[in-house]
């Protein structure tokens, strides 16, 4: 198997490290060959806090993925998250040089550069600048301005940036283990690739990826990325709340959250008790189900309320016709979609990566959305290079053609 078509996505999450190996086939489809996971340690709120330990865990996940896919992993696409990552929309503008009226391909890069130039804090680096719209001489709705005549080309970009050192920490940690990092991708940008289809993007949708340490979100309106961000609250916080509220150890709280917790209050019968059994079967303690659910409910409600506030501030809430897509490990809490619907007053559903082929049923789990999304993201980049080169030549030819005649 040629290594050229192998794409590897690596997500260093707070609760698990997930490494997905995919094969990009010539017809453009992606086949998932193997998924390696390892429980994550040394990561808090999506960021590495213990370099050594995190490195060990990354190695475990990579080895697991190599064993399962029978592929040597040489380079990865790395997903990052963390509260330091911020985003905003910015418009870049250039004037077309005096001597020509037609907008050419190279103008794109100039306009993108002009959009990037602005106001990223000095310690930060750019992660993504994603095109939203073009304007030619103030006229919007231009899909592809190449070949159009105009004096001024403007373009809106969604700029995502983060603190340089923190991003470099993640990259270094992976490099220490072995593989090269081809590109760094903000997690929700990756998960949106597999969670949303083009139709949903056009209608307008919110993707909420509730992970272990962070809740990442991304908003698409009119088919373009409008807003993205990261709340440093996640499933870990729910577990922590349960642990503190019920005075039980974290490990026990985690089990309880996964096995029994629900985000809906008032649904359990009064006096419905959960018996906590020790490993030895000793000292069984009883916990009221309603109490557990109240704790989970409060936290999840707060996450959604914070998100809603962020969306409200950007004025995006009323444009989400396709509703909310919930993904990530934290979305597996029962009743979470119902709660999201209640708070946002729009339909919400659970989703996972489904736009890939292969042994997917095993990976149809919201926990893998980001890592699989990384592959999809990478795949979208791959064929573009030869194709764009080809089209450029073609365009040059056609230009020549028109010039001749």
């Amino acid at each position, binding site marked *: 198997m040629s290594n050229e078509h192998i794409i590897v996505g690596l997500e260093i999450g707070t609760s698990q490290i997930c490494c997905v190996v995919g094969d990009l086939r010539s017809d453009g489809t992606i086949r998932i060959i193997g998924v390696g996971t390892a429980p994550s340690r040394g990561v808090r*709120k999506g960021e590495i806090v213990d370099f050594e330990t995190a490195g060990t865990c990354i190695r475990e996940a990579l080895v697991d993925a190599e064993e399962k896919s029978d592929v040597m992993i040489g380079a990865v696409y790395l997903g990052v998250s963390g509260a330091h990552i911020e985003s905003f929309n910015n418009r870049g503008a250039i004037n077309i040089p005096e001597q020509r009226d037609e907008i050419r391909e190279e103008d794109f890069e100039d306009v993108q550069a002009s959009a990037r130039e602005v106001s990223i804090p000095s310690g930060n680096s750019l992660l993504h600048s994603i095109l939203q719209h073009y304007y030619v001489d103030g006229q919007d709705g231009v899909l592809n301005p190449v070949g159009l005549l105009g004096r001024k080309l403007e373009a809106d970009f969604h700029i995502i940036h983060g603190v340089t050192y923190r991003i470099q920490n993640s990259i270094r940690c992976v490099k220490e283990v072995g593989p090269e990092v081809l590109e760094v991708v903000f997690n929700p940008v990756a998960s949106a690739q597999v969670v949303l289809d083009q139709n949903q993007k056009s209608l307008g949708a919110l993707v909420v990826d509730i992970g272990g340490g962070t809740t990442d979100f991304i908003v698409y309106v009119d088919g373009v990325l409008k807003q993205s961000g990261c709340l440093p*609250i996640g499933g870990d916080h729910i577990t922590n709340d349960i642990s503190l509220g019920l005075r039980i150890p974290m490990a026990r709280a985690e089990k309880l959250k996964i096995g029994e917790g629900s985000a809906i209050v008032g649904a359990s019968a009064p006096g419905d008790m959960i018996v906590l059994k020790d490993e030895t079967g000793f000292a069984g303690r009883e916990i009221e189900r309603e109490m557990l659910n109240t704790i989970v409910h409060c936290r999840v409600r707060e996450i959604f309320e914070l998100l809603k506030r962020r969306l409200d501030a950007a004025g995006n809430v009323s444009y989400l016709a396709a509703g909310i897509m919930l993904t990530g490990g934290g979305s597996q809490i029962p009743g979470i979609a119902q709660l999201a619907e209640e708070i946002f007053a729009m339909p919400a559903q659970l989703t996972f990566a489904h736009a890939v082929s292969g042994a997917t049923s095993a990976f149809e789990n919201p926990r893998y959305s980001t890592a699989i999304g990384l592959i999809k993201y990478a795949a979208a980049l791959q064929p573009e290079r030869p194709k764009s080169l080809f089209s450029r030549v073609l365009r040059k030819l056609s230009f020549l053609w028109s010039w001749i005649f």
Partner: protein
Amino acid sequence: MISLDRNRATAARQDLRIAIVGLGGAGSTVLDRLVLDGLSGASLVAINTDAQALAGSVAAEKIQLGRSLTRGLGAGGDPEIGFLAAKEAVGEIRAVLADAELVILCVGLGGGTGSGGARLVAELAREQGAKVVVVATLPFTFEGRRRAEQAEEALAAVQRDADLTMCFENDGMGDAVAPLAGIQDAFSAADQTISQAVRALAGLARRRGLMHLGFDELATILRFPSEAAPRCYFGFGEADGANRANDALARALKNPMMDKGRLLDGAPNVLVNVAGGSGMTINEVQILMEALNRHVGEETRILFGVAVEPQMGEKMSVTILCALPADPAVVRLQPAREIAIRPASTRRAEPESAIEEPAAPRDFPEPTEETADFPPADDELEHLPVVASAAPVPPPKRTEAKQEQMLLDPVARGRFERSEPTIVDGQDLDIPTFLRRNVKVK
């Protein structure tokens, strides 16, 4: 002042004559409940204006009030009528209470018979030379402001003649049941709590423990600087089996009035009585007390008693009682000293002093004398974790009525203790949401 014959009191300890009086509708219900739960060794007296309700009572002795005044109907929620009706039956009440040494008066305040008659019954009992303990319940808030005011007036009145007043808020006991449960369950939960409290009281009075708790300790619990009767909170748990010490405590704390033990944190004094069969080991008592200590504040004094009762067999029981000052909002309802209903009583020369120390053990034998007759049988038990059995009572400390909430100490960050805090709008999001929003998690 009536003085009690001390010799008689101590000699008759083993066989203390207790009369439990249920006055009014609520009082009678408590009596029924007591019989259901099985109480022996006390005479039960039901007193009511409502003849029909009285006929349905299981008490051995019944007194109908106001035969000519209300003609077998109830007092209609009017304390004035309740009082006048009770006055008609003064002779009968005297006769019934004649040889009682301890009268436990159960009464639900706020209505007619209970609010009106309580003071009179207490006074009569006192004149007979009995100790009087009033176990009163205050109406639910939803019963209305008028009833709350009547209850507060009656409480202030009855307090003067009672040696001890234990006052329970129905509201607190109503929390016992889930919000979805029927109103009947709410009332029955209240009755059950009162019944347990009365049983525990009778038990305290009769038992001669290895480490005895008596009325003086009870008085300490109930002593507060404020004039209004403090609100009592009570938990009782009984269990058998291998883990009976922990189970019994857990059940006692599970009583909703205890709020999972959180409430104990605010009480200046907590009374704990542990009773068990002869098989109860010192280790179990220690386990239990250590577990309990985790729930009480550092400043809290624990008044601790142990009693061995062979008839309990394999069982072990824990009684926890504490009192907190009345909710300031409720205290405001209390009228001035002048009580509307004043029976013609010239007996008391200085009622003011009685109010200042509502629960002082005025006529009771000293604790040391009580226990002196029964030295601990087993010397090994001497190193039990006694916190206070004969220690001088510290000056009453003003405790603020505490709102139910956990302290927002740094511990609340849990595993995010050392991580970078996530501050949004001035709130540290790492602290559990339910804590920051004061959501009550039982």
